[in-house]
């Protein structure tokens, strides 16, 4: 195979680099010589810390993906946004009711939604973000919760929104209010909490705390892994 086929040119902060074409964006950046000290996150597609905006040559669309998941394309211009500046209102779940009106009163920007759907286009998790916001206007909290289960709070939607909605924070409140007040309580959790409070695991924890680091590593490697 020729080098042309296996290598691709990508642009990191505007500078061209030739990198193997099978790498993820994150690995390609590292291949190019950058070292992630922060903003690389879990490398597993779960944490939303490696949000990357990119454009491919000759395409007007601005795309968003997670750097640890997306395989590079030739002619990709990339920029990473590991942190999205956003206002975070303070709310007290204990003083709230699980209604869409309550969510809207904490995040009144929701009512500015223009229905442009740019948020949905920006979502690396393929969540129907606009539908989830509009469901709140329709009084349908459950739908918002269902649609946004996969949200990793990367914030790409919010940085693209012309109405300055911070969707990921809205959804977090919606899910927490729904989880606390609407969903059935998990019985096994209550039982486990009782066990913990009654001191069932105190002795074991104490023993672990007194174990040396090397022994801990051994115990960790031999640990029981939960079945799938």
């Amino acid at each position: 195979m020729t080098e042309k086929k296996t290598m691709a040119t990508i642009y990191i902060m505007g500078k061209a680099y030739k990198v193997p074409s099978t790498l993820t964006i994150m690995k390609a950046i590292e291949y190019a010589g950058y070292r992630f000290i922060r903003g690389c996150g879990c490398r597993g597609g779960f944490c939303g810390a490696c949000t990357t905006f990119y454009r491919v040559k000759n395409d007007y669309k601005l795309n968003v993906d997670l750097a640890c998941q997306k395989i590079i394309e030739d002619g990709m211009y990339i920029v990473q946004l590991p942190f999205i500046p956003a206002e975070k209102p303070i709310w007290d779940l204990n003083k709230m009711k699980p209604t869409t009106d309550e969510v809207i009163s904490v995040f009144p920007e929701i009512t500015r939604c223009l229905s442009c759907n740019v948020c949905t286009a920006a979502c690396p998790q393929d969540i129907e973000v606009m539908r989830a916001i509009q469901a709140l206007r329709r009084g349908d909290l459950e739908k918002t919760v269902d649609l946004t289960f996969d949200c990793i709070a990367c914030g790409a939607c919010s940085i693209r929104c012309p109405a300055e909605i911070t969707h990921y924070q809205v959804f977090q409140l919606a899910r927490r209010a729904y989880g606390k007040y609407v969903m059935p309580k998990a019985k096994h959790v209550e039982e486990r909490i009782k066990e913990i409070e009654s001191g069932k695991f105190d002795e074991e924890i104490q023993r672990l705390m007194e174990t040396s680091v090397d022994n801990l590593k051994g115990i960790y490697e031999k640990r029981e892994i939960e079945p799938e």
Partner: protein
Amino acid sequence: MVIMVKVLYYPGCSLKNTYPEFEKSAYEVCKKLGLELVEIPDWNCCGVVPSLAADNVMRHIGAVRSFINAQEKGREIGTNIVVTLCSMCYNVLKRVNLILKEEPDMLETVNAFIDDQPDYIPELKIVHLLNLLKEIGFEKLEEKLNNPLRGLKVAPYYGCALLRPNKPDGVPIDDPENPTILENLIKSVGAEPVDFPFKMECCGNYHVVFEPNIVEMRTKKIIGSARSEKADIIVSSCPLCTYNLERGGGTVDRSEQIPVVFFTQLLALALGAEPYLPTELNINFKRNRRRKV
């Protein structure tokens, strides 16, 4: 067996949050009249206030997305009629639909922007439930009455959104200078409409947020005028008007207050269906009638 006619239905946010009784009573009334309201799937907020700038396409995307969903659903159930209850939603949807019908450029721009849904073909007909009732014929209502509201004096409050802006074949659901559609409806349920000069005055609208004194000044006039004509209740078709008449403007003397109900609640009561009125108000209705009959 009653044959149910299906029409598309756009509820709007206020009916799902602040005033569910408006929607619930409307469902009851329509069931009695053989109308099935089919809620548009995944409708978006209408945009609340239509843009006054002719080229501000962006403000109308929400309405158009709802039209597209309505168009798809309408094909499935065989109708192109979209019914609204909220006056504001009616006003916005009607105006946006008219723009799209009359301005092919605007339609093209909107359809090009919405690249994640099918194109909108402006064939939907946006009507207010009052229009539809009139078309069915108020005399049909009279036939179905089982609880005529005799002796009840009702002030018909139109507000702005049902009648303005005045444009031939446009927004107004009736004569914009002297509408009578609500009066006819009130008569058809056996009640007595009162004529009061402020029936088309603006309630102050969204000024309730930042300039509540404007709303206070206006609603005092409207309620005072209905009161001086001895109205027992006011009927409205607008959640925001209802809110302003009931709660807008901080210092309105509550002893001067007249109950405000949605026209669908009045209809449901007369048709012997559940009107979703507050219990207290139900009693007042009965008392009023007993006193007057």
